[in-house]
C-alpha cells in the first residue's frame, strides 16, 4: 500500500488522537455508550428551522427545470445577490453578487481563499489556541502557519502579532466566536489589529484579514459580533450554515470579500478558479437556492446558551479555572495538572470524553464541545465534582 509522504506524516503526528478515540470507544463498549459522556465532537445538535425544510421540500417538488445542473463556479447569481443584500444591510457597504462566492462549507471556502492568495513560503498568522485544521488549509497550498499566542483570556495579543509580521506575511486568520475557546473578539482589539495591518499597508505590504465566522450567529448574552468589514479594508469573511441553520452535513457556505478591497477582480477570479480546480466545482445546488432566503434565520440559540450556562456552572462549581465563553459551543478550561493528555485520560476514567488542549496548540487545557443533549451535561456534574477536588 502506498500513500503520500505528507499524509503519512500527518497520520503519524496525530496518532495520539486515534489512541484516545479508541480508548473512548473501549469505554463505550465496556460501560454502554449511554454511560459515556462524549464532549469531543463539534457536531451541531439542532435541526434546521422548520421553514427551511418546508422551503427545501417545496423546491424539490416544484417543476423548475435545470435545478440540479451545473451553474457558474461562483454559484447562482440570484443567491449571491440575496447574500450581497444581506451583507449590505448588515455592514452598510456596497456589496454586489460579485463579492460573494458560494462554497462547500467554510472549510471549502478557506481552502479556496488560501489557494488564491498563497505562494510557497507565504506566511499566515493564526492566534493560538486554534482550530487545528487551519494548519492543513494553509499547508495544502504551500503556505506556512505562524502561531501567535493569545493573552491569558484568549484575546488577541496585538504586540505579539505585530512582532510576528514579516515580509512573507500574507494574511492573518481569525476565528471569532472561537473554536476551541468560545471567545468573541471585541471591536476594540480588532481595531488595534487593523491599525497594525494598515501601518504595514502604508509601507506597501498588503496583509489580508481572513475571518472564519462559522459560529457568527452562536453568540450569547446579547453580545454583538463586531463587523470586520467596517474595521479593516482588506477583509475576507468565510462562513457557513453548518451551525446557524443546522446543515453541517450538506456542506454549504460562502466567501464574502469586502467592497473596500481595491483591485478586487483578479482576487475574485482567482478564488472562483480555485473553487473549480480544487474539485469543489460549485457549492451543492439545491442548498444554495434555499440558504439565500434564510440569511436572517437561525436555529434557536437559547438551546445552546442554556447548555453553556449549565456546563460553565458545573465547571466553576467543581473548581475548574475557566473563561466563560461568549459564543460557539466550546469551553476550554484549564487542566488541573500541566499534562493535559494525562488529564483527559483521567476524564475518560470518569466516563467523560474531552479533547486535550495540545490538539489546539495550547497544552494544560482541555476542550469540551457542549453541543450535546442537556441530559449529558447534567450527568457530567457528578464526575466533574469528583475530579475537581472540591
Amino acid at each position: 500500500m502506498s500513500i503520500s509522504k505528507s499524509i503519512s506524516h500527518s497520520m503519524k503526528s496525530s496518532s495520539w488522537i486515534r489512541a484516545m478515540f479508541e480508548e473512548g470507544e473501549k469505554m463505550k463498549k465496556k460501560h454502554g455508550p449511554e454511560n459515556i459522556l462524549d464532549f469531543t465532537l463539534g457536531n451541531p445538535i439542532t435541526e434546521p428551522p422548520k421553514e427551511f425544510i418546508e422551503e427545501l421540500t417545496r423546491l424539490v417538488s416544484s417543476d423548475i427545470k435545470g435545478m440540479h445542473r451545473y451553474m457558474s463556479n461562483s454559484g447562482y447569481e440570484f443567491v449571491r445577490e440575496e447574500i450581497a443584500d444581506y451583507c449590505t444591510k448588515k455592514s452598510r457597504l456596497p456589496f454586489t453578487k460579485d463579492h460573494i462566492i458560494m462554497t462547500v462549507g467554510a472549510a471549502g471556502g478557506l481552502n479556496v481563499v488560501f489557494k488564491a492568495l498563497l505562494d510557497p513560503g507565504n506566511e499566515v498568522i493564526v492566534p493560538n489556541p486554534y482550530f487545528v485544521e487551519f494548519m492543513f488549509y494553509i499547508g495544502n497550498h504551500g503556505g506556512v502557519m505562524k502561531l501567535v499566542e493569545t493573552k491569558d483570556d484568549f484575546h488577541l495579543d496585538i504586540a505579539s502579532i505585530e512582532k510576528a509580521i514579516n515580509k512573507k506575511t500574507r494574511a492573518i486568520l481569525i476565528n471569532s466566536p472561537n473554536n476551541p475557546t468560545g471567545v468573541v473578539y471585541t471591536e476594540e482589539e480588532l481595531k488595534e489589529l487593523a491599525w497594525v495591518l494598515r501601518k504595514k499597508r502604508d509601507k506597501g505590504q498588503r496583509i489580508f484579514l481572513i475571518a472564519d465566522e462559522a459560529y457568527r450567529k452562536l453568540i450569547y448574552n446579547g453580545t454583538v459580533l463586531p463587523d470586520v468589514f467596517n474595521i479593516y479594508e482588506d477583509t475576507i469573511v468565510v462562513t457557513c450554515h453548518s451551525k446557524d441553520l443546522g446543515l453541517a452535513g450538506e456542506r454549504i457556505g460562502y466567501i464574502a470579500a469586502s467592497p473596500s478591497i481595491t483591485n478586487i477582480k483578479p482576487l475574485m477570479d482567482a478564488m472562483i478558479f480555485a473553487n473549480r480546480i480544487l474539485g469543489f466545482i460549485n457549492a451543492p445546488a439545491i442548498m444554495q437556492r434555499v440558504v439565500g432566503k434564510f440569511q436572517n434565520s437561525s436555529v434557536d440559540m437559547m438551546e445552546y446558551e442554556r447548555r453553556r450556562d449549565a456546563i460553565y456552572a458545573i465547571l466553576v462549581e467543581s473548581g475548574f479555572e475557566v473563561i466563560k465563553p461568549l459564543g460557539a459551543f466550546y469551553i476550554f478550561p484549564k487542566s488541573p495538572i500541566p499534562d493535559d493528555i494525562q488529564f483527559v485520560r483521567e476524564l475518560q476514567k470518569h466516563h467523560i470524553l474531552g479533547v486535550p488542549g495540545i490538539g489546539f496548540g495550547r497544552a494544560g487545557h482541555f476542550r469540551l464541545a457542549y453541543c450535546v443533549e442537556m441530559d449529558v451535561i447534567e450527568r457530567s456534574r457528578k464526575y466533574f465534582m469528583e475530579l475537581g477536588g472540591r
Partner: protein
Amino acid sequence: MIISNKIQKLISNQEGWTRRMFEEGLRIKKEYGEENVYDFSLGNPDTEPPDEVQKTLIETLSNPIKGMHRYMSNNGYEDVREEIAIYLGEQYGLPFTANHIFMTVGCAGGLNILLKSMLSTGDEVIVPSPFFWEFKNYIENHGGKTRFVQTKKDFQLDIGKIEKAITKKTKAILLNSPNNPTGAVYTEESVRGLVELLNKKRAQGQDIYIICDDAYRKIVYDGFQLPNLFALYDLVYAVTSHSKDLALPGERIGYVAISPRIEGYQLMVSALMISMRTLGFVNAPGLFQRIAGKFQRTSVNIAEYQKKRDFLYNTLMEAGFECVKPVGAFYMFPKSPIADEVEFVRVLQQEEQIMVVPGRGFGRKGYFRIAYCVPMETLQKSVGGFMRTGKRYNLR
C-alpha cells in the same frame, strides 16, 4: 500582485483563448439572440434527473430523520456505502464492502482527495492525451507531475508510448473511459495491453495504480461492454459521480471505489479521510448521499443520447468532416479542416453561430470538441451550419 503568482500563472496559461472565446460567445448571443446560437461548448447535460430520483428526494425530505443534515463520518453514511458495495460486487464480481467505498463531492472532489492521498512531491501520473484539462490541475494541486502520452489515431491507448513514459517516479495512470473529449471507450484489447505492461512493472518491484475516472461509465452506446478493469488488474481505484447518469452535476455527489484486491487498503481509507477533511470537503453532501445509495442501477435515458450521437455523427459525415465515431459520453472530437483549429472555431462561431471548443484545450491541436448534450432541436437547427462549413473548406 493581489493573488498568488502560482494561481496567476495557472489562470493565464489556460484562460487566454477560453476567455476570448467565451466573451466572443456572449457577444454573438447578444447579436443573434440566444435561440439562434448553437452552443456545443459545455458538458452540462440538458436532462432532468429520472422521475424516481425526484420522487425519492421529496419523500426523503417529507419524512425527516433526526440528525439527517448533521455531519457524518468523513467517508459518508455506512448504509449508503453498503448499498454501493453490493452494486459494485454484482457489477465486477469482487467482494466490495462498505469500507471500500468513499463518498465524495463529485468526481472532481474524488480525484483530488485520491491524488492528495497518493502523491508525494515530484511523483508522476501518466495521462493519455487528448485529456480533460482539469486532470493536470488536480495532479499539480498535490505536488504531482503530469506525463501526457498521446493516444493512437482512433484514440485508443498506445501501450508502446506509455511504456516509454514510465519512470521510477510513475505512481499512477489516470484513465477516463468513456472519454472526454473524444467519446472513445477503451477496448478490452487496449486495456489488456496496459495491464500486461503494468504487471511487468509490478514484477520488477514498481506498483503503478490505475485510476479510472468513470464519470461517464453508464453512457455507452451500441450495447458496448466496458472491460472489467477491477477483474483484470489488482491496483485499481475507480472514481465516479452521479452528475451524468442521474443528471445531478450541481449537487456534487460521487464516490471512490477501492479495489478489494489492494492489500492493506485500510491505510488508504485513513489517508482519504484526512484528505477529505483537510482539503475542506469534510463529507459528501448528506442529502444526495441518500439518493446515490438508492439509485446505483438507475440512469437517465441513454437512448436519447445515442440518438443525438447518431444524428450529429451523420451530419458531420455528410458535411465531409473526419471523425472517430464515439462509443460513449456525449462528446465528439472531429478533425479541424485547417491546422489552426482556434481559427476554425472562430470562423464557426462568427459565420454559423456554432460554438465548440478548440482541441488544444484538451492537449491536441487540429481538432475540436462538440458536446452534444443539448436539445435535439439545437442539433437539428445546426445542420445547415455544419453543411455550409463543409463546403466552405471544400470537404466534399
